[in-house]
């Protein structure tokens, strides 16, 4: 945790909402990127980012400073996304939503966006936990140990999930 984060966390714990607002400002883009990659939907990503920060504020007392604040926040965000995935009705809509949003953004750069669209749709077809492993290791550059901490599982499990996810993605994107 950076010194700035450390100070802000301490102040937020004492109920200083302005300090918490600064923490949100420091990490909002990272959390939005994560929630978007996990859901494939801008609207859901925003809701989940909100939910992540609200949960983080509620649980600040549990944060002991052992890990980086960003890692702890990641963990909350990923678990919020995994719970979101349990809603089966939305799960089926997610692929469609994702494709629609990608089409809306395309504006002429068809080939490049088509590739991105295919990649995002393929990502959405992965089981949620495998997708989380890919998002954390490939997009956010976490190593397997850090990803294991975020997902609260062993490094071996992460390695397996990354391996299985890559195999499936290669098939889907061939």
């Amino acid at each position, binding site marked *: 945790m950076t010194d700035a984060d450390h100070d802000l966390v301490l102040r*937020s*714990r004492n*109920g200083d909402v302005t300090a918490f607002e600064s923490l949100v400002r420091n990490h909002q883009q990272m959390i939005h990127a994560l929630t978007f*990659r996990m859901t494939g939907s801008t609207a859901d990503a925003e809701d989940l980012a909100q939910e992540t920060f609200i949960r983080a*504020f509620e*649980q600040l*007392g549990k944060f002991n400073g052992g890990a980086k604040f960003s890692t702890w926040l990641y963990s909350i965000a990923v678990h919020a996304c995994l719970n979101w995935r349990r809603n089966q009705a939305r799960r089926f809509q997610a692929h469609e939503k994702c494709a629609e949003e990608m089409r809306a953004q395309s504006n002429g750069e068809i080939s490049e966006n088509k590739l991105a669209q295919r990649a995002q749709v393929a990502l959405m077809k992965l089981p949620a936990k495998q997708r989380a492993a890919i998002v954390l290791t490939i997009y956010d550059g976490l190593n397997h140990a850090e990803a294991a901490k975020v997902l609260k599982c062993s490094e071996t499990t992460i390695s397996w999930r990354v391996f299985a996810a890559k195999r499936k993605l290669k098939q889907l994107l061939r």
Partner: protein
Amino acid sequence: MNDFELKSKLKSVRVPERSADYWENFPSQVRMNLRRTEFRPRQIFWPRLAWAGGLAFGCLFLVMTLAPIHFALKNERTIRREMAELPQHLRVFMADEHGLHYLIAEQQ
């Protein structure tokens, strides 16, 4: 397809860009939601449990320490009183779970 190609394909997925206004307003939206629910950071349960446990242990320790002292003092008072009343007759004092007992010998 090798890992490098896969990685570059996956990295082509861009996160939708949001306006500067959105980023400016997002923290205050979170703040508004925090106000709406009107909660403070939830106090963690374990320290409170630890304090309660510590207090209970302290009370138990005091009871366990003070009770024998209290009974020893009480017995001492009884022994002194009985010895004052029957200076020549008391032979043996015994203490068990029922309290203090003493053996009185008849005068020769």
